[in-house]
């Protein structure tokens, strides 16, 4: 008997009703690393953290970066976010070479276009959760009332709207981590860079965060997630493997529903 029925994979429910503007056009590059190397220290203490890395992230693309500790994941993200400068090579964010920007211009680009989740959160203890999330918007000229509204919405997306008025030291590690994620996704950033953003979260909350990042990508953002959890990397369109500062392999989703099915039981 042939013609065994196999289920087809429908569009997933998070698919936005309004498609990203990229549809039908050549993919828009949000982030491009071109032959990027990073060396720390000098003389005998020199460490080559990244070696000639090429990486492109398009609008609407969710990329996960995996690799053993010390393989250069955080360095890659810090360079992409303009937090540090390359030793060699160039990084383009929405086509702009970061090396051509002044410090002030770089800071403005980071505020407007880049959402960054730090491995150690980097929250401001003297502000409450909402203020931590709304501050970058307000610094960028968004009216306080609107910034607060957007901040509350971001806190809602990560599931902690009821903690909006708490100060940072009144929050658990996992709750602080979710504030850090809310700050990165607020205000429709074009590029979201997240460095192990689920380390302090239980597995169900971790999955919720993946759904949030997936939605941002589906709405047109470029997302780069550093993770050591394969189940989270499974949400990405592409997984980049780093070893000793080099990209050694990439796994791209096949979008082939049959690939996950066993042969028919005979």
């Amino acid at each position, binding site marked *: 008997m042939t013609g065994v029925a196999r289920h087809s994979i429908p569009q997933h429910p998070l698919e936005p009703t309004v498609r990203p503007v990229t549809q039908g056009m050549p993919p828009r590059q949000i982030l491009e690393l071109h032959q990027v190397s990073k060396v720390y220290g000098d003389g005998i203490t020199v460490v080559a953290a990244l070696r000639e890395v090429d990486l492109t992230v398009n609008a609407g693309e969710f990329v996960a970066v995996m690799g053993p500790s010390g393989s250069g994941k955080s360095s890659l993200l810090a360079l992409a976010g303009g937090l540090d400068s390359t030793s060699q090579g160039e990084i383009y964010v929405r086509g702009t070479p970061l090396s051509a920007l002044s410090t002030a211009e770089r800071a403005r680009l980071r505020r407007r276009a880049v959402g960054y989740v730090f491995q150690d959160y980097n929250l401001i203890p003297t502000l409450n959760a909402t203020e931590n999330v709304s501050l970058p918007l307000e610094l960028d000229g968004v009216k306080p009332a609107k910034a607060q509204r957007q901040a509350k919405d971001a806190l809602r997306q990560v599931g902690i709207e009821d903690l909006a008025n708490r100060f940072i030291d009144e929050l658990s590690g996992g709750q602080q981590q979710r504030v850090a994620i809310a700050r990165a996704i607020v205000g429709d950033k074009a590029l979201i860079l997240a460095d192990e953003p689920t380390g302090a979260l239980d597995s169900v909350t971790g999955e919720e965060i993946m759904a949030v990042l997936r939605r941002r990508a589906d709405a047109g953002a470029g997302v780069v997630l550093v993770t050591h959890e*394969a189940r989270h990397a499974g949400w990405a369109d592409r997984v980049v493997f780093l070893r000793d500062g080099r990209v050694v392999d990439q796994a791209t989703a096949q979008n*082939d529903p049959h*690939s996950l099915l066993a042969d028919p039981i005979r």
Partner: protein
Amino acid sequence: MSVKHSLLALLTQGPRYGYHLRAEFEERTGSTWPLNIGQVYTTLDRLERDGLIEDQGDDGAGHRIYAITEAGRAETEDWFAQPSRPSNPPRNELAIKLAIAVTTPGVDVERVIQAQRSATLRALQDVTRAKRSTGGESRPADLAGLLVLESLIFTAEAEIRWLDHCEAAVLRAARSGQLPAVPAAVSAPAPAAMPSRTAVPTTAGTSRRHTSSQQKDR
């Protein structure tokens, strides 16, 4: 064997015919293990021979209807009560390949591991996509399908963690001189050269187990 007992369990809910049983089995297991209709009929023949079901004849529309017997109900209860025990340990193609790779001079074990890691991650991406596309768990069959997909995710995740562990152990052994260094010219096949079926080693292994246990049944 799980197909035999699954069909029996479906028949505890009332008489059914072959195609109906196949459709219900697939719906309840998230269509993850497509069932061959020929396999359904041979299984029904064997269940009837063993007195676990009885043939109730044609339903008038050309369907042969089967009903469960008392012995069949007892067998089903037994199945649920007993833990599932795969042949111990289950034959693991990947573990065998790695064991041989580590002990064969000139094989680039890291490359073998990375090829497998990429393939398993691709499978994980596909299952995750399938999971995202399931519309919640409103019906028992939806929940059942979701749980089957989750089991594939947990299995793939465990395999990747095991690969990470193997890689670290191999690197450590190579550094301490227990394993010979790999000459750069010799290497395993590139990931692209691997058949796409290896993308799902665990489920492929499962179906192989089904096949071999069937042959033992005969």
